[in-house]
């Protein structure tokens, strides 16, 4: 019994200290983000858009869409890209050996014709079969290649790209017309100091879209999707704004990011063997920056939005979360020598420990917390009080932060929202710790297990319209 007491006290203490650490970290990040956005609240953003819409002030961008079996969303996605308000850009769709009608659809819709083009192979890739160019949109290209995975498709796109910056966009994502302009703003304003920027990915389920344009914004009726929307708000608005301010970002969404081609090529491009190829590239870039002793930055930009469809079923969401977590841990492990390494500045001393402790190993501790609460209630006595303390910290961490993130999002974006949707999201936030949080923790622990046993699992999403995002860590 004494051993059990010791164990209960030990684990209770560890979990409570961990929870307090997480709450304080998130709290500080939240306050920082709040102060930053408050300053720019109601600033006329169109002023900047007007300035940089002229090619003379901006930099040309190659938009790369890696596509594997994206027949459902690819045409809408290309339409949304064609309607981008950006002075000079090209679209490169890389068909990574799709087995469905992705290629036929693109060729037919955009009147693609075969062209001969010599490609400078700056990053080694699997072979290209054929390159096509649209007859109606000469800035739109289709590259057919043998299947080699998303990272390889992106590397092919980088080799084909004609411009100094490239933007990776998933084959089922929809961009707002000003998104690229706003994502490129920190790059244009920094004269090359910012070498990569990631936009804000938000969930599009429930929205009314046509030919890549958003006609009406509605909140999805699916609770699982709504919960993910809240989760996205929390992750993008609270975490990344602060990390970005101090150049500590390790993850920018592969669904919508801009990179300097020169730096990516020098860093070796996307890594083929990794699940989380977008995070891996960002970490490699940080590593390379430090090696070269250059003053470069990687930023998260909260304004430009990329719309994407989230999983609507438990099974698909489970696969997605498992993969995300495995990808995160793989990247952290791959660059483990950077952890607590002063040579890498804030990335080594703050970002890596943060991602290891709070994002990577967090699910074990949190899940342990849930198990502890159940045990403690049975054991009664003092443990009953520890369990209440833990439960309250879960409420603070899960419920309060979620509600605040929702309110924060609505306020900062000054969005037109339906009051009923706001109330629905807030009420749903109350339920998070009882169902959504524990199940996602279990899935993330599964991802951790897969990482430990080196199990390879290539997730396949069920496409409905504008489809899911892989490789996005929340």
């Amino acid at each position, binding site marked *: 019994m004494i051993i059990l007491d010791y164990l209960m006290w030990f684990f209770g203490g560890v979990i409570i200290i961990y929870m307090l650490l997480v709450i304080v970290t998130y709290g500080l990040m939240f306050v920082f983000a709040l102060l930053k956005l408050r300053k720019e609240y109601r600033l006329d953003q169109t002023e900047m858009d007007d300035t940089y819409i002229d090619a003379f002030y901006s930099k040309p961008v190659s938009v790369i869409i890696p596509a594997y079996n994206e027949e459902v969303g690819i045409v809408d996605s290309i339409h949304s890209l064609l309607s981008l308000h950006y002075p000079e850009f090209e679209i490169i769709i890389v068909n990574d050996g799709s087995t469905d009608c992705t290629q036929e659809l693109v060729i037919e819709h955009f009147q693609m014709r075969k062209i001969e083009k010599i490609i400078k192979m700056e990053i080694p890739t699997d072979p290209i079969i054929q390159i096509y160019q649209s007859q109606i949109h000469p800035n739109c290209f289709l590259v057919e290649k043998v299947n080699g995975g998303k990272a390889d498709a992106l590397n092919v796109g980088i080799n084909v790209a004609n411009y100094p910056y490239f933007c990776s966009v998933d084959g089922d994502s929809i961009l707002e017309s000003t998104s690229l302009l706003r994502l490129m703003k920190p790059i*244009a304003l*920094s*004269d090359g100091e910012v070498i990569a920027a990631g936009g804000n990915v938000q969930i599009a389920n429930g929205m009314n879209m046509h030919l890549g344009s958003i006609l009406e914004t509605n909140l999805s009726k699916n609770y699982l999707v709504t919960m993910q929307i809240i989760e996205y708000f929390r992750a993008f608005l609270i975490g990344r704004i602060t990390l970005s301010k101090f150049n500590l970002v390790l993850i920018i969404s592969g669904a919508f990011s801009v990179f300097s081609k020169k730096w990516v090529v020098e860093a070796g491009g996307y890594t083929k063997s990794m699940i989380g190829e977008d995070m891996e590239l960002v970490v490699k870039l940080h590593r390379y920056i430090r090696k070269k002793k250059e003053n470069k930055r990687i930023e998260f930009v909260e304004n430009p939005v990329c719309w994407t469809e989230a999983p609507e079923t438990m099974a698909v969401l489970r696969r997605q979360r498992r993969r995300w977590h495995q990808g995160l841990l793989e990247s952290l492990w791959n660059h483990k020598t950077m952890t607590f390494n002063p040579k890498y500045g804030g990335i080594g001393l703050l970002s890596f420990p943060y991602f290891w402790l709070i994002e990577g190993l967090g699910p074990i501790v949190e899940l342990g917390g849930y198990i502890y609460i159940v045990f403690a209630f049975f054991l009664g006595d003092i443990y009953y009080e520890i369990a209440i303390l833990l439960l*309250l910290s879960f409420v603070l961490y899960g419920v309060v932060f979620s509600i605040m993130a929702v309110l924060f999002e609505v306020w900062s974006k000054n969005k037109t929202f339906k009051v009923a949707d706001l109330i629905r999201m807030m009420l749903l936030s109350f339920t998070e710790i009882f169902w959504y949080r524990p199940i996602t923790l279990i899935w993330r622990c599964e991802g951790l297990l897969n990482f430990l046993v080196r199990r390879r699992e290539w997730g396949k999403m069920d496409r409905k319209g504008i489809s899911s995002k892989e490789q996005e860590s929340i």
Partner: protein
Amino acid sequence: MIELSIQLLLSIIAILFLFCGVAMMYLIYQRRNEERKKYEMEKYIQKTKILWQEYILEDGRFTDTLIPKSKIQILAVEHIFLSYLRNISNPIIQQKIYSFAQMNLKEYYKNELKSRNWSKKMNAMYRIADFHIKELISACEVSINYKRSIELFQLLKIYSILEKEKFIQEILLCNYSFSESGYKKLFSYLEVEMLQRLLEKIEILQQAAQYALIDTIAAKGSMDVIDGLEELLANEDTEIRIRTLRGLERIGVIRDLEMYIPFVDSTIWEERLMVAKLFKYAPLTYTAEHLEKLLQDSNWWVRSKAASTIIEDPRGYQRLKEFIATTNDQYAIDMANEVLEKRMRAV
């Protein structure tokens, strides 16, 4: 201890929930308010649309009805004016808008400049630049924080639009460095003659400003600046030489081919690339020898540009065919073949 912690956590959670509840109520109230404002703005725009059209587009008479009486009406007028200014480039229309703003919006922006809200102050400065309200320049000077680059930039932008002499003085003295695109924006409001004056003092400017000045001058496309640019070809700064070559290529004139020949053998590939581009403005008879050398360059981009330049000349097709037959450089042959094929497709 644990009991105390529970009490503390409960209090924190209760306070935060209370805060969230109040914030939610505020957001709902704010939403209703926004909707009402939007509705009133649209109503005002609909009501005065014809009057504005007559006044601005059809030389109609000014009536007192057009003078905005409330903040919502001012915002509506702003919206109308910005639509005209961003979509129609007509000096008469612009002048009418500027005069109206000077007469009827000046006081509003003057008050906004005094606001403690940073966004309001910045928006007012944006509109002062948009509507050319020269009389508020001194108010802007008083209200800005000179340590904040975005505010200083906006003031310089106002100078470059409304007080050009002062802009020249300030930009030469300014210790703060903006981005190149920022400087380009500032310089774009200046006439060629003003830019030439700056070009004469280019060394005094910040480095990003120097590059932006060369780009802006070239973009204006005036033949008057060629002398000034050609002088920069001997500059020690590599980037300045590259920008100058690019600028001269943009203007599209080669006055003295000899001046550019040394760049064919430059150790900097960007210079070789630029000269390969520039040679399209000289007859192939004089440049073929150099372009063929560039076609065999170690850099892919230089080879590619040299091939494109050759094919653009009427005798280029034949020249490339001959080149393929005589060279052993497989990279150069591939590049020549690519442009030849492109030409065939275009035909």
